[in-house]
């Protein structure tokens, strides 16, 4: 029984992996051809507006733009399979390097944001369900609506004004204070500053990095908090109606135990899906947050690439975003099937 269950899990994961690969292939084809159909000349973007024709011809040859489209796609794909996304037009650096330089910053923000979102969202949802229709419920529902509907750029600026300008409690922008390099430089290991400073026991930098994380993480978390709270509330309400909860109550088990132990455990599965999806959503949400907080991650880079029509960079980022989405979905599906055996593996 157990062996077949494991086999079915493996088969499920394998099947999902295969479909994921097809999705990514499709994304690569679409982004490649959209980038080529857009009415801009990559060579003139590369060379700048004042370039002369001879120079454009030289760059066209260098970028391989003088070859027919299918050939260009074949070259692009073969380079892609070797992990080469080409060079950015605006920074002239390899896109894989641009991504790997910035990914840790974005992931650090993303993890912090999702951590905050779960830490606040789930208890709020439980609270709201527990006191359905009462004051706590109303407050939580208000918080979720505000969280879901307040645009990140507005909330971010608001938090900056309050916590930087007025209260002077928290830093304005960036991952680390600029002076840190003189005061207590962080040794790069993983390039997650929080982790690196923790590993090297650099408490000064750790504290500074955490302080820098608070506002952006909270801004990023606002939307997921609302969503998670509402989802948890809905599923909790459903679960609290179930017979076994009533039975538990009849046994005189404490309300808090019922709510937090029995009900929450069974209500968490759909919330997990939501968390997974918001995780992927938050990946794009980091773009706004990164701009507001000058957070040196992928968002800042992508925004600039879009503005400069830096199509190799845009393609690379689209592919990365799609991969992230596919991967997170895969993880959610697998975790869900593991947490809740009722979820069908078909």
């Amino acid at each position, binding site marked *: 029984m157990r062996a077949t269950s494991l086999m079915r899990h493996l088969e499920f994961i394998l099947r999902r992996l295969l479909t994921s690969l097809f999705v990514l292939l499709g994304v690569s084809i679409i982004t490649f051809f959209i980038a080529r159909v857009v009415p*801009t000349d990559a060579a003139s973007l590369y060379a700048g*507006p004042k370039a002369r024709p001879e120079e454009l011809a030289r760059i066209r040859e260098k970028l391989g733009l003088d070859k027919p489209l299918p050939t260009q796609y074949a070259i692009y794909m073969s380079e892609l399979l070797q992990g080469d996304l080409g060079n950015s037009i605006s920074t002239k650096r390899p896109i894989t390097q641009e991504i790997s330089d910035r990914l840790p910053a974005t992931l650090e923000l993303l993890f912090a944001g999702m951590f905050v979102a779960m830490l606040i969202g789930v208890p709020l949802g439980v609270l709201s369900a527990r006191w359905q229709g009462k004051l706590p419920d109303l407050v939580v529902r208000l918080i979720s609506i505000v969280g879901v509907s307040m645009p990140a750029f507005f909330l971010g600026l608001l938090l900056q004004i309050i916590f930087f300008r007025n209260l002077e409690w928290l830093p304005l*922008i960036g991952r680390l204070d*600029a002076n840190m390099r003189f005061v207590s430089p962080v040794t790069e290991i993983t390039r997650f500053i929080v982790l690196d400073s923790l590993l090297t026991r650099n408490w000064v930098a750790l504290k500074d990095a955490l302080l820098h994380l608070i506002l952006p993480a*909270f801004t990023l978390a606002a939307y997921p908090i609302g969503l998670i709270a509402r989802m948890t509330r809905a599923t909790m309400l459903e679960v609290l109606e179930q017979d076994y909860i009533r039975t538990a109550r009849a046994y005189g088990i404490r309300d808090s135990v019922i709510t937090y132990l029995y009900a929450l455990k069974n209500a968490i599965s759909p919330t997990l899906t939501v968390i997974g999806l918001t995780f992927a959503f938050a990946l794009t949400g980091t773009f706004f947050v990164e701009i507001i907080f000058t957070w040196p991650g992928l968002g800042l880079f992508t925004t600039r690439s879009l503005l400069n029509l830096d199509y190799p960079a845009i393609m690379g980022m689209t592919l990365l975003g799609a991969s992230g989405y596919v991967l997170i979905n895969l993880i959610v599906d697998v975790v869900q099937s593991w947490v809740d055996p009722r979820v069908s593996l078909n």
Partner: protein
Amino acid sequence: MKRFTLFLSLLVALSLVLSACGGGAAPEAPAAEEPAATDAPAAEEPAAPAAPSVLKIANTANITTWDPIASFSTEAAYMANVYEQLLKVNPPGSAEQFTPLLAESWESNEDGTVWTFNLRSGVTFHDGEPMNADAVVKSLDAARTSGGASFIWWMVDSIEAVDDLTVQFNLSASAPIDLIASSLYGAWIVSPKALDAAAADENYWANGVEAGTGPYVIESYIPDQEIVFQKFENYWGGWEDDQYDTVLVQIVPEALTQQQLLESGSVDLVTSIPRENYGSFKDNPDYTYYEEPSFFNYVGFFNTTRAPLDNAKVRQALSYAIPYDDIIQIGVKGLGTQSRGPVPAGVWPWSPDVNQYTYDIDKAKELLKEAGYEGGGFSLRLTYAAENATHEAYAPLIKDAYAELGVDVTIEAIAFGQQWEEAKGDPANAQDMFLLLYWPTYSDAGSDNLWSMFYYTEKPFFNLSYWNNPEFNTLVDEAIGLTVTDPAASQAKYVEAMNLLVEEAAGLFFFDTKAVFIIPNSIEGFQYNLNYPFVQYFFYDLRPAK
């Protein structure tokens, strides 16, 4: 019991919210009790006497490349502190036109076709290589054959090393090589060793590698984040005690964020503050407010290849209908002056003798009538670069003004790349009006602005009016030829050409912008130089106030 659970739940929720606001991610340190991290080290700094003097700058400028040969964009803000040209052009009104940098003296033959530069001796590049005639030849040959701004050297036939410290330029046409060699782009002298290394590895410069002779070296570079400069101990200009040892540049794209950093003392200098907030600094005794002429101007091109804009009377009418003062007020909050032709004020060959249109709606209507378009009745498609907020602000004024003439304007904000593509295609299908922010590559707006934007060539460079006037072409050719040998005659020709341009209304000449600098009084030595518009600060000039 129930009440207790409610209390407990509320308490949990409250503590969660609080911890999220105050220290959700920092459980060990409630933020409320800590001073802002940005303040703390700044306050400690003076306490350590051995600490190097650090200048902190927030700059908007992106780095599109660290390749000094290819560079043709905003990174000049940093690279101009690392690399040097043979000469530097002084701001208008200076006693001398040039400051010698890597050249000590220079001269040209009578007709300006052979130039000789004597180089400074004993200068070394940051990588230890000697700066000599061979290095100059190698750098400038690379710049003129494959550089981002290679075209500035179009008239150069060859550059030779006469001896170890003498370089000779042989030209196919008379040209002001002193001005060209001072160009911000395409004129930096780079270590030959580094050029060889870069030829072998196309990503050689990518991570902030440099090999100049300038006062500062790049110590580290983190993309989109920061650049750290250290002083170059062996700089030929020498060092005084109070110059900065270290310059820390934070790349901060948002102007409002920069303002907050400046006001909180987190940085010493910024490059960009929202225009609407200038007022608060003007009146603040802690800051000096500079409002200076700049290299930039806003122009509009009429598509002169098809009706009705092929008719000069129509173009004149449309030039009279522009509310220039309102456009300056709305576009740049009054920080501009109405242009006299396409040359910005303060840049050669600008002249007060060039005519302007003034707003006169009746005259505009009359001219339209004369042209056979009484009451307008045609429509125009206007494009501008969506990235530019100034165009976005004033373009609607053009639409409103032309509506009064019965001319309907459709405004299209598109990405500059796209706008450019369309304009460079077949003029018959191109836009009717093209708004552009322009600046000369080096301090000669005759051979640049006038030539680039209105000289007719079969494939237009920036002549997006597609204007074809042989008389104008002749005048510009003659003026360019006289620039070195007889500047006064050259300028007279330019003025004649510009008045022809204005008379024929080949384009709209909106305004020259002003550059604003807000410098805290804690910094001394700032000097604005309009010839280097992308270099806000030459670090070497700056010192802490005593």
